[in-house]
């Protein structure tokens, strides 16, 4: 027989002035199964808590209802009180007499009647509460970091320096990401490679970091603390242990006319190549799509010249498996190509380039060795037009958002151009100058005031070629939309930052949500910006939205702190409000019919399949089983279940029906 204790709180005047608390306690005393019912001025105060503690002990209570404020306020408090008194904390419930009753109704008998109803309802629920125990799951203290750009590098180093193992996976042959392609960085104009390459080397040499380049995530299963991952190591066609990175093969490869990805198509590379001289690891890859041996069946020059016989033409992709406890997604972004803009020639003009291409032109290691030369004829451009918001903030192009980094890098581009071509003229067409950040506005002002970059507020409607010049037609909205026509030698489009190709597929592998632009979505836009809705999977950098370097690095360190906090525990404790599939006598039986509607309904992939076997080991049927590590306790499966075989602990059918029955009795 249940022995429930009811504790009615006056909350000073807050409840007591409107609800007749003594009458509530009195009425509850008459409910069958209530062994003890009192009212008190402040239940959450020390004496109030003591009162509950003593009542539990003296009356051997089997459940407690505290009728006070919202459970969102004090449920943890009173559950702790019960726990300290030896009562399972999940046998304590709260009736919300303050927010849902005394504060929203006038003082009257009706209000007190409602209060009695609310308590009685919870009494019926508590009678059916079962002791629950927090779920403990072990933690594998290895982190998987996806993406070897600056965000991934930072996250990997921070986690590794906290003493945990890291597996860093990069899709390209080298880590470094977009930052390695940049010339100089705003607002300090320090050389991007100079600050990045030491970090890249640190990653390669860190004893806690296992680096997989030219590799991609194949699958991720499991749950927080206990993921299983499979990584596809694409065939480099090379024995990395033997290769010394001497580079002889790349100089001898006869196939030299392949557009270099690193140089954004402005330079050429060979079929066996290292993307850039500072690559980590500094080991080449054979591009099988272009290699003469793979396309035509002969050549093998690299094999002949290799002093260590490291070339392996027959190498195949390899799948490696790892167990990890947390995942940091830092897969970055990409920028739109110039062919996205019909009004700017659909990419047909060689001297209309995007910002990343201009970075390569400015870079000392770039195709022009840092001299500003235009791609079509190699001449030094005398007039350069920069167009901000190329695609961004343009609903007609399907990109409504601001790409955030363009205002700053466009100012930087114009400035660097002026530093290199003193007599040249730089124009910037812009909508707004968005330079919010430390030393950012000062930086754009410097471009305008000291380097005399001409900023024109307006859009460019068309670019066309005439007599070897690019005619840029626009309007100056600060001069009453006066038409502006500039004869330019080079046009740089600050094209929109967009999600990587394949972002959607990756998000689905990781079970993280993504927005309509395929950027990954954080758990809460303000308070949980680095977490995803999948526990144990975190976001860093531009895979979430376009970000500059300091912001990416900051977020990467944020994820590292989250991962380190997770790894600081040997076991994770989780609320036991999870779904369970019933298992009853005869041993291991269940009413589950194995329709697996629950499986398709579950947003967390927490429903697994379990085979029930008879004593001969034959499979009798396959039923659903909830993985308590993954289940978040939403209960969607419960409402889906046709045979009522799955139930949510803390909100069981029995409990909620009892509440409704009591309420209306």
């Amino acid at each position: 027989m249940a022995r429930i204790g009811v504790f009615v709180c006056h909350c000073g005047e807050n409840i007591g002035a409107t609800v007749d608390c003594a009458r509530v306690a009195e009425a509850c005393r008459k409910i069958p199964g209530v062994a003890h019912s009192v009212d008190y001025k402040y239940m959450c105060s020390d004496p109030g808590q003591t009162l509950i503690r003593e009542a539990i002990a003296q009356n051997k209570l089997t459940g407690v209802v505290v009728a006070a404020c919202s459970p969102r306020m004090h449920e943890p408090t009173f559950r702790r009180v019960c726990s300290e008194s030896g009562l399972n904390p999940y046998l304590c419930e709260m009736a919300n007499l303050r927010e849902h009753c005394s504060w929203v109704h006038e003082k009257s008998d009706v209000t007190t009647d409602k209060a009695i109803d609310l308590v009685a309802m919870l009494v019926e629920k508590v009678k059916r509460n079962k002791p629950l125990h927090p779920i403990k799951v072990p933690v594998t203290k290895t982190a998987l970091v996806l993406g070897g750009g600056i965000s991934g590098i930072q996250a990997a180093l921070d986690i590794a320096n906290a003493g945990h193992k890291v597996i860093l996976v990069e899709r390209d042959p080298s880590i470094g990401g977009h930052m390695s392609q940049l010339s100089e960085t705003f607002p300090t104009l320090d050389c991007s490679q100079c600050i990045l390459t030491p970090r890249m080397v640190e990653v390669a040499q860190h004893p806690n970091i296992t680096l997989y380049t030219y590799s991609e995530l194949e699958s991720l299963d499991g749950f927080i603390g206990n993921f299983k991952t499979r990584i596809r190591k694409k065939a480099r066609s090379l024995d990395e242990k033997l290769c010394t990175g001497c580079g002889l093969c790349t100089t001898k490869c006869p196939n030299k006319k392949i557009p270099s990805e690193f140089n954004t198509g402005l330079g050429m590379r060979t079929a066996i190549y290292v993307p850039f001289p500072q690559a980590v690891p500094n080991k080449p890859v054979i591009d099988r799509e272009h290699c003469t041996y793979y396309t035509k069946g002969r050549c093998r020059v690299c094999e002949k010249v290799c002093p260590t016989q490291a070339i392996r033409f027959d190498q195949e992709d390899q799948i490696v498996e790892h167990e990890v406890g947390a995942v940091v997604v830092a897969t970055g972004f990409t920028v739109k190509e110039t062919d996205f803009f019909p009004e700017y020639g659909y990419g047909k003009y060689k001297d209309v380039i995007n910002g990343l291409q201009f970075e390569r032109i400015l870079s000392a290691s770039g195709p022009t060795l840092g001299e500003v030369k235009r791609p079509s004829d190699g001449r030094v451009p005398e007039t350069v037009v920069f167009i901000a918001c190329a695609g961004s903030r343009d609903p007609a192009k399907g990109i409504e958002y601001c790409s955030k980094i363009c205002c700053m890098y466009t100012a930087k581009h114009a400035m660097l151009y002026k530093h290199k071509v003193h007599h040249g003229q730089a124009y910037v067409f812009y909508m707004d100058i968005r330079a919010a950040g430390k030393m950012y506005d000062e930086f754009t002002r410097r471009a305008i005031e000291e380097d005399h970059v001409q900023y024109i507020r307006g859009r460019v409607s068309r670019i066309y070629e005439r007599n070897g010049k690019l005619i840029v037609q626009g309007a100056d909205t600060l001069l009453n939309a006066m038409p502006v026509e500039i004869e330019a030698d080079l046009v740089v489009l600050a094209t929109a930052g967009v999600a990587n190709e394949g972002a959607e597929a990756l998000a689905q592998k990781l079970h993280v949500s993504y927005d309509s632009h395929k950027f990954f979505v954080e758990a809460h836009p303000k308070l949980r910006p680095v977490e995803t809705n999948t526990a144990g999977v975190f976001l860093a950098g531009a895979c979430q939205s376009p970000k500059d370097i300091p912001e990416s690095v900051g977020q990467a360190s944020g994820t590292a702190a989250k991962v380190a906090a997770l790894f600081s525990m040997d076991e994770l404790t989780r609320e036991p409000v999870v779904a369970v599939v019933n298992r009853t006598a005869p041993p291991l039986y269940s009413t589950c019919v194995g329709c697996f509607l629950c499986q398709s309904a579950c947003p967390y992939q927490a429903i697994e399949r379990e085979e029930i076997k008879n004593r001969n080991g034959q499979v009798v049927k396959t039923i659903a089983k909830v993985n308590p590590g993954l289940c978040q306790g939403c209960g969607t499966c419960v409402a889906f279940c046709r045979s009522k075989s799955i139930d949510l602990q803390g909100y069981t059918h029995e409990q909620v029906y009892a509440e409704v029955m009591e309420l209306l009795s």
Partner: protein
Amino acid sequence: MSEFEPKIVAFVCNWCTYAGADLTGTSRIKYAPNVRIVRFPCTGRIDFMLLLKAFSQGADGIIVSGCHPNDCHYTSGNFHARRRWMAFRNLAEFMGIEVERIQFSWVSAAEGAKWADLVNSTVNRVRELGPYDAYRQMAASSWQ
């Protein structure tokens, strides 16, 4: 004889509407005392048989309320609830249940005033509809 006071049961999710109703309290916005809130983790958990149970036990009106689309704490529970409601409503109508007694809504944790409006408007509508004896009799006779 005093005016008919309908009994309204509200099935709400913990993260949005329950918190929204808390905010109504914190803001001291008054509303009709006819409603009793039953807390669920998510509207996705709400088995619509509960609604029938509530009617058969004497409820005159029902509110189901959770998070706005895309705001669900569990990503998609509110979408499941919405779809279930669409299916249930057709079935209920076919069965002769007065579906206008059921108010399906979204109230976020920031919409304290909306919760009060929702309760008041539902109470007023159900008060006009009168006591829901028809279903109780139907349910009772089918029991025998």
